[in-house]
């Protein structure tokens, strides 16, 4: 039987989990690329020029987005768990911060 559960808190949970998973999968790659610097700065450069490509730029934006989403999802959870506010207050506060952060990041990335 199908299970109905699409309500805001559940979606927030899913988003946090998927972003965390995405970050964890990307992280080894990220480290691996940086490690190139150890043996060969040129290789790193070669990779870095890739970042000019739109697709890579998209991926990069995606990563920043994931990181931002996960960061604020995480801060929301930490506030929820450890701060003595009411649940809606915490959600609104986190949403407000996340919203403004996302807007400013997007703006900055656009500006580049």
């Amino acid at each position, binding site marked *: 039987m199908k299970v109905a559960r699409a309500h805001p808190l559940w979606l927030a949970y899913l988003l946090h989990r998927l972003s965390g998973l995405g970050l964890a999968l990307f992280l080894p790659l990220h*480290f691996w690329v940086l490690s190139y*610097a150890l043996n060969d*700065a040129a290789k790193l450069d070669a990779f870095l020029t890739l970042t000019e490509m739109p697709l890579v730029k998209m991926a990069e934006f995606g990563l*920043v987005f994931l990181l931002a989403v996960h960061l604020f999802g*995480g801060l929301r959870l930490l506030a929820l768990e450890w701060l003595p506010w009411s649940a809606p207050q915490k959600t609104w506060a986190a949403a407000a911060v996340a919203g403004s952060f996302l807007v400013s990041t997007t703006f900055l990335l656009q500006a580049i």
Partner: protein
Amino acid sequence: MSEFHLYMAQRLSALVMAPFVIVHIGVMIYAIQGGLSAAEILGRTQGSVFWFAFYGMFVVAVSIHAAIGLRTILGEWAGLRGGMRDWLSAVIGLGLFALGSQAVWAVTA
């Protein structure tokens, strides 16, 4: 390590990472302007005790944090239990730490 200690470790590592992530994203946005180059990155970071400590702690925190997080996901979504799951997440944590240290060394040494 009890479930509660894992929880504390994950939350505390998250707390540690929060400012790092913000700075990191900030630097990325700054650095990305006018394109990235190895020289530019390395010029900023190499030999800097500050960046070494910054990224070093970041790597430690993220290895702990992600390993515990993946352990949860391995349990809930992959159905892994018991020793197998703990072992796998320890390997992930150590692996991340190894790769991360290598990267930090590469850019700051």
